[in-house]
């Protein structure tokens, strides 16, 4: 059992199927090791990632989020990542103005060949979030009225 007193961050990764998911597969085949704190959710393209999902992840207890996809010009669907990029620029600005900690959201481009980059990215993000600590402010606000929350 992990030491309960030491904080282990919970991180969710939203990745695109064609590049980052394949890159993470490559990290696996290369047997590079990284932290267990995060779990991957597969999307067909970064363009599919709804920004509300990021907020929902924070509300459900995530301390950090990774959003990753294909490099610009390499998108399997040609332009999904361009649209995602614009969306992130606007969303990030809005969140920052709101006072939400945007350091906890890590955006990156990881291609299918960058297994090493993925491992480094995960490790550094986990370390950063561990330093920042649990995202108590958001979870406190989200936990209010928990008993009355709908079970989906």
């Amino acid at each position, binding site marked *: 059992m992990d030491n309960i007193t030491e904080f282990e961050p919970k991180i969710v990764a939203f990745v695109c199927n064609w590049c980052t998911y394949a890159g993470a597969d490559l990290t696996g085949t290369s047997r590079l090791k990284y932290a267990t704190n995060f779990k991957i959710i597969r999307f067909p393209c970064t363009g599919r990632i709804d920004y509300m999902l990021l907020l929902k992840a924070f*509300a459900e207890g995530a301390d950090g989020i990774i959003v990753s996809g294909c490099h*610009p010009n390499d998108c399997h669907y040609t332009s999904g990542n361009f*649209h995602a*990029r*614009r969306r992130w620029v606007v969303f990030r600005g*809005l969140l920052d103005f709101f*006072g939400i900690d945007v350091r906890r959201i890590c955006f*990156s481009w990881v291609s299918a060949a960058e297994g090493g980059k993925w491992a480094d990215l995960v490790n550094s993000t986990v370390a950063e979030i561990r330093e920042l600590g649990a995202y108590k*402010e958001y979870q406190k606000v989200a936990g209010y009225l928990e008993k009355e929350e709908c079970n989906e």
Partner: protein
Amino acid sequence: MNKLIEKATSLLQEGVVTKVIGYEEGTEKPRPFFCEKAEDTSKLIYNSRCINNLAVYLTKPELLGTGKVAVVATLPTLRSIVQLAFENQLKEDKLVILTVTDSEEVIEFAGFAEIETYLKDFKLKIDQKEQDLIDKLEGMSKEERWTFWVEELSQCFKCYACRAACPMCYCTRCVVEVNCPQWVQPWASPLGNIEWQINRAMHLAGRCTGCGSCAEACPVGIPIDLLTRKMMEDLGEEFGVVPGQPNKNGNVLSTFKPEDKENFIR
């Protein structure tokens, strides 16, 4: 004012329109007025206290099938009309759009393109008080900003007046009404209030015309128009978005440039 009343009367008497949407004097301040009879046109007023955005009525289903409608538009209303037209929500042949200049001349626009040209002379100005508040917020640390917004939004009881007043909120089924899955908690709670405002601001990205109706409509006086105005500023700087002059290529979020900034992406 007389020229406006004349114009409205003639439009109604000649049967060109079935309704003139304008402003009348209310108990404390001007309010929207739906004039259907030529005799009532004398109640029409137009001055700087007329701040409601009348474009919000132009997308209502009640107007379907009623024939042509005239609307007396202030500058914010005109910007909203241009934006709505760009989003295919208005039919040019079903509307007569009027405005009144500072010298009390009534202009009837021939079409949406003419409105756009007219608007080019009037740049959107943010009220100094609001600009000061935005600047103050930007100067705060992020924890302070968070505390500010959580406190402000703690008063919100989800009346959705902001949504009702905004002309850009014309969806038949709002995202907050989708419950499979529940994107935004529709009830009043700290999380629900925050999610709603963030979602609203994102949906207005590139579309908000800065009329301020949302903050006006809020019964508890939460400064929610700060969010959309800050977003307008940012989008204007980053992507050259100008309210009331929609980019013909498309909305700012549904288009892109290969050189968009990405210094925060690893």
